């Protein structure tokens, strides 16, 4: 019964009797004999230890738990609420300005059709507000758990590092899409209430049906959501480097702002294609006739590259990290 014990642990057990010298590991002469007698005494051969079986939907259960935390947390809901308010404010403002007459350009476009507010709201919010909301969730994802100490219990559960990181990323990406969808829905509803419904006149002057206009909104949401998900990868990567979530969040937001500033400097045109925010506004390709899928594809490739790069950084860091919090 204790053959392994005795051979591996001469110090343990009754070995250390008074007056008896403590033995050095591996020098237990009786182990062999004991092993033989044990085998005779116990006919059933001990089965080798096996890892416990995994439940089938375990990954989705953890993702569900993660989403539950994210979408029940007051902070995250408040950010969604604030973001939902902005299109309403924009819509009402444009309605008032538009009502006074003398409007031109974009204002005329938006006030002229109920769907145009959605594109306008997206292009405005995608610059900073949406990135901030996404960054708060992504930057907090690992650092927040580390800071609170819950990370050690998740990993001891054992959640598995790669699995947990993947769940954290999917959660942040889903929140990114939720943010985008909230903007679009809020703008759409506001637009429908405040402005005339009907065929949409695009930037190029072509007119499309309202149904096709809605489809193009859907494409825009898919594209912008992917951009926000790419940003979430950066937030997640920074999040694995610290136990202070505000650090990861602030770091990512500063990165976004620096990129926006660099984009505005004409002398630096050559580097703008490498900056993530450059690609966020490419969704206006859906306002061309026909849709400029080439521009969308280019943007999606950039997002994919960012997700791959920062996902790898996050994984490399997190999989070998000492959890001492």
């Amino acid at each position: 019964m204790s053959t392994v014990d005795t051979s591996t642990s001469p110090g343990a057990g009754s070995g250390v009797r008074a007056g008896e010298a403590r033995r050095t590991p591996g020098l237990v002469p009786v182990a062999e004999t004991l092993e033989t007698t044990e085998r005779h005494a116990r006919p059933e051969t001990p089965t080798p230890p096996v890892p416990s079986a995994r439940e089938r939907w375990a990954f989705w259960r953890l993702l569900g738990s993660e989403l539950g935390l994210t979408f029940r947390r007051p902070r995250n809901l408040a950010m969604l609420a604030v973001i939902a308010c902005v299109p309403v404010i924009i819509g009402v403002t444009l309605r008032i300005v538009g009502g006074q007459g003398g409007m031109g350009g974009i204002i005329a476009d938006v006030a002229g059709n109920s769907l145009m507010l959605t594109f306008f709201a997206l292009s405005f919010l995608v610059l900073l507000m949406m990135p901030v909301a996404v960054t708060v969730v992504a930057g907090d994802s690992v650092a927040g758990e580390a800071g609170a100490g819950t990370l050690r219990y998740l990993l001891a559960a054992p959640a598995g590092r790669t699995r947990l990181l993947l769940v954290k990323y999917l959660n942040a990406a889903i929140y990114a899409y939720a943010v985008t969808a909230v903007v679009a829905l809020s703008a759409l509803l506001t637009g429908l209430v405040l402005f005339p419904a009907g065929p949409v006149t695009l930037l190029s002057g072509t007119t499309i049906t309202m149904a096709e206009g809605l489809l193009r909104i859907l494409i825009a949401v898919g594209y912008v959501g992917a951009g926000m998900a790419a940003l979430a990868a950066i937030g997640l990567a920074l999040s694995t480097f610290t136990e202070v979530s505000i650090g990861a969040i602030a770091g990512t937001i500063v990165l976004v702002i620096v990129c926006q500033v660099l984009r505005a400097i004409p002398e630096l045109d050559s580097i703008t294609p490498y900056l993530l925010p450059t690609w966020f506004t490419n969704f206006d390709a859906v306002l061309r006739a026909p849709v400029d899928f080439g521009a969308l594809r280019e943007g999606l490739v950039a997002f994919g590259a960012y997700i791959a790069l920062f996902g790898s950084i996050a994984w490399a860091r997190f999989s070998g990290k000492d959890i001492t919090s």
Partner: protein
Amino acid sequence: MTTVTQEAGAPFGAAPPPADGAGESAIVTEGLTKRFRGGQVAVNALDLAVPRGSVFGFLGPNGSGKTTTIRMLLGLVTPTAGTHSVLGLPATQALPRVGALVEGPAFYPYLSGTANLLRFDAADPTAPRTTARRRVAEALERVGLSAAAGKRYRNYSLGMRQRLAIAAALLGPRELLILDEPTNGLDPQGTREVRALVKEIAADGTTVFVSSHLLAEVEQMCTHAAIMRTGTLVAQGTIASLSGGLATRVRIETPDTADAARVLGTFGLADVRSEAGQVTAELGGHAPERINAALVEEGVAVRGLAVLRPSLEDVFVGLTGEGFDVDG
């Protein structure tokens, strides 16, 4: 040098170790070492062997590397050198069958006790979802938290938090419990309850590995112990063998010291010492109740009889040096 596991289980009538990996130690480490960045050696060449079915006390002064060892066992910290296996499995494969409490409780403050436990249960890929609610309720019941199950963790008292952490360690069928200072912050009742709980869990055949710097606690609930000092293992073995240099003594309080000493002598007890109002002697293998009966038969007025077990404290202080000052 024979059956360590049997001996370990004996005090609590433990069931024999589970069929799989029977005879294995619950925890084995060989040369386990952790050097933190910055050169701090927290654990130095640790050779630990925790027999299955034992209640294993992991003792050491503050900063002696207990938590770091536990973190390595749980795969939270990568060892600089050495190997370890838990329940016969390498690295983290055994973790679903291990319940752990590491360096105090940590939960989501805005969730209730139940929601917190469900969260950690969801993180375990081997935990069945269908039984989750029942298992959570049972775990809460076991630590006496049922009444506060719906309360937000933010509003828990220190002791309630500690209990919740123990409940989290009891969420599934566990073969090994690793508890890092489980009685930290508990009131005397809570401390006793934790001790009783540990004994109860051990009686089911679960191995319990409990770190502590409370010697009395370890002495009361453990069958085995290991003593650390600044990252180095200085002793391990059964409690009896650790305090083996000091024999168990019997103390008889009586005015008739001479008669009492004579009766003890007839039993053949060694080192009989008479003092004012009491006689003490090494108990050896004798049953104290038989000694008492003999004393009464001989007309000795027995006012009190006590069995004085040797204290681990003397061993501990001898091995870890002066008091509990933090080294290094």
